[in-house]
């Protein structure tokens, strides 16, 4: 077992506020907190946090770990390592694996592989429909009993409105959330990038904002009708944010997330036809970027989720219309958020930590205020350091980061998972 760990000299930022404090960890829990706890002599290990923020570990509601099925692209272990380096102590693994996560066996396999890696908690999402085929409901109660909280067919949205209504109705009595990638697929066939001026000039088929907004609207209304808890994945358009804002004001049981690239990059990045910038939903316009930021600022968007989507280089070198969509995000999320968002530190940490923890149903162990007795899932980051991404240095098995050449601000120094430092000074410990 790990011995005691002292995080010394940092500023604690959690739901309760912001204060200078040292944090002593023993037996997987916070043993003591306060200024000069005098515990240094008792600690087996001291982590310097001078000038750093000490916060509850981050929770990513949206990652693709590719295992089982495409282990050459990412594994649960390599993805977990990338997560730990990004300050995440829990990640929700999307179910578009092969086989998909629509049965107890697959879900338990994913969870067990996460435990084996031991770098963060891997929370398998379940499928809404069997095989993500959009035809029959997955066994929700069985999967909830196996610890699944978030259900989605991510990769595909549930297109059939009757099936989605049934899923919502059936989910009512269960402790679960239905998460939708909002896209009317009929409107995005063959689409490569945002539909607008840029795609018109580049001669690429457009992915209209409308295709997202129609589905946002449909699911908000279905949730209003059925009372089901829903979570909208990776919102990308200004109108989507406005629809969610209005629905929340009406009391609809909805939460929403945004990905770092959607508040950072625009469709202008496609001008060089580099498939690394191809993602679903696509990079939008500067107005949409501003609306996503505003949605994060006023709480319309609850969480920052990376949609970490590893792809091998050879796939990202195909012609852009056949290259797969998706980009890496775990190791850069904090640096992008702090560089791009003009928000109080507590709000940024909230969107990365306790707000997504609540959506994922893990508030008992992640995102918890740092006080005596709380579980020691923590991140320590330097909020001011500038750095740039070196793809070769990423822990992910893949290299498809869109942030090469961009200066990020703020970087994780240490990550503590269940009381053990899994990252120390930016170096993974296993």
């Amino acid at each position, binding site marked *: 077992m790990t011995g005691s760990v002292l995080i010394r000299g940092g500023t604690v930022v959690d739901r309760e506020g912001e204060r200078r404090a040292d944090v002593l960890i023993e037996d997987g829990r916070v043993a003591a907190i306060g200024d000069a706890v005098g515990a240094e002599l008792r600690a087996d290990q001291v982590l310097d946090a001078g000038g750093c923020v000490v916060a509850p570990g981050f929770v990513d509601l949206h990652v693709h770990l590719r295992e089982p099925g495409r282990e050459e692209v990412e594994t649960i272990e390599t993805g977990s390592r990338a997560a730990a380096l990004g300050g995440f102590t829990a990640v929700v693994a999307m179910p578009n694996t092969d086989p998909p996560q629509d049965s107890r066996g697959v879900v338990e396999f994913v969870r067990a592989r996460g435990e084996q890696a031991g770098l963060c908690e891997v929370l398998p999402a379940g499928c809404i429909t069997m095989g993500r085929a959009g035809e029959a409901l997955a066994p929700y109660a069985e999967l909830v009993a196996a610890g699944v909280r978030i259900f989605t067919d991510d990769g595909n949205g549930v297109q059939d409105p009757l099936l989605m209504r049934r899923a919502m109705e059936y989910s009512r009595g269960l402790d679960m959330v239905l998460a939708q990638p909002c896209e009317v697929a009929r409107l995005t066939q063959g689409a490569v990038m945002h*539909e*607008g*001026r840029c*795609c*018109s*000039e*580049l*001669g*690429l*088929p*457009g992915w*209209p904002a409308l295709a997202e907004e129609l589905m946002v609207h449909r699911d908000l209304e279905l949730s209003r009708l059925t009372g089901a808890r829903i979570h909208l994945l990776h919102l990308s358009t200004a109108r989507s944010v406005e629809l969610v804002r209005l629905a929340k004001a009406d009391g609809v049981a909805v939460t929403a997330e945004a990905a770092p690239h959607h508040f950072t990059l625009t469709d202008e990045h496609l001008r*060089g*036809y*580099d*498939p690394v910038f191809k993602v679903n939903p696509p990079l939008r316009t500067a107005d949409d970027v501003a609306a996503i930021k505003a949605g994060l600022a006023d709480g319309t968007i609850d969480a920052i989720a990376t949609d970490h989507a590893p792809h091998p280089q*050879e796939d990202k*070198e*195909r*012609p*852009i*219309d*056949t290259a797969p969509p998706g980009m890496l995000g775990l190791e850069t999320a904090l640096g992008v958020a702090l560089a791009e968002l003009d928000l109080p530190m507590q709000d940024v940490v909230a969107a990365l930590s306790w707000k997504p923890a609540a959506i994922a149903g893990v508030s008992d162990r992640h995102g918890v205020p740092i006080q005596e007795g709380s579980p020691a899932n923590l991140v320590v980051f330097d909020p001011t350091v500038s750095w740039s991404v070196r793809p070769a240095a990423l822990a992910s098995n893949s290299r498809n980061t869109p942030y090469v050449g961009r200066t990020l601000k703020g970087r994780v120094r240490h990550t503590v998972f269940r009381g053990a430092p899994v990252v120390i000074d930016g170096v993974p410990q296993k």
Partner: protein
Amino acid sequence: MKHLRSISEIGVDGVQRLLELTDTMVDINQRPNPRVPALRGKTVCNLFFEDSTRTRLSFETAAKRLSADVMTFSVGTSSVNKGESLRDTIETVAAMGVDAFVIRHGSSGVPWQVSRWTTASIINAGDGWHGHPTQALLDAYTVRQALGRSSGLDGVRVAIVGDIRHSRVARSNVEVFTALGADVTLVAPVTLLPPVPPAPTTDDLDAVVEKVDVLYLLRMQRERMQEALVPSLREYSARFGLTAERARRLPEHALVMHPGPMNRGVEILVDPAELPGAVITQQVTNGVAVRMAVLFELLGAGRDVPVEEPV
């Protein structure tokens, strides 16, 4: 000039320069032996990932008239069909020693991707819906020649008619005509326009047909019917085809152009041979000269412009 991937990357100065050089090439092509040693020792590789007869033959002819060595690679006979990636194909061919790749591909942007993997010059011979810069240059040259303009096309009224949305020819031609000062109007139903059109638009061909100096017809592809973009070819022809009635209403000096291959009975319902303003054959003839100019500009750095007869 290193590459010709789009009209916008060479700008109006680049366009003017290439059109001037084309004059020289037209002279060469009129000689009894239209062959000069200008690019002797240079290797041009034609990479055609999509069917094309006229563009491929035009580039081959152009390269040979400048005495370059030519390799031609068509997808039907290549290892691309054995699963080789685009990058591996390019790097393999480049390793044989290639000075320029002429690339035709069904996907927009491939010339930009390829230029990251080789130091050779890249000439875009048509990429997806995006661009076909040598077609645009030969069209601009043809208009200049036929209307007797010495440099720009200030005030020339050009109407481009048809499936603008899916047309690489339209995109490049709007760029080149606009750069040279022409007034371009796009004539199409909204379903066949890009989301944000690059020039003023109308869906009323009859309203513009009497007010054009150039009527540029695009090829209408039959598969557009299945995508519900137009109700039927018959209705398309009635609204957007060059009928005998519309041909009569064209100004006397107006040019009729088409990038080929023509769909007779769809976008053109009269015999172009009977249209005094049709310059469709001149377009093809000028294509060779324009491509000679492009190849010489990209590969002939430091060499003399081939004005003299070879000895």
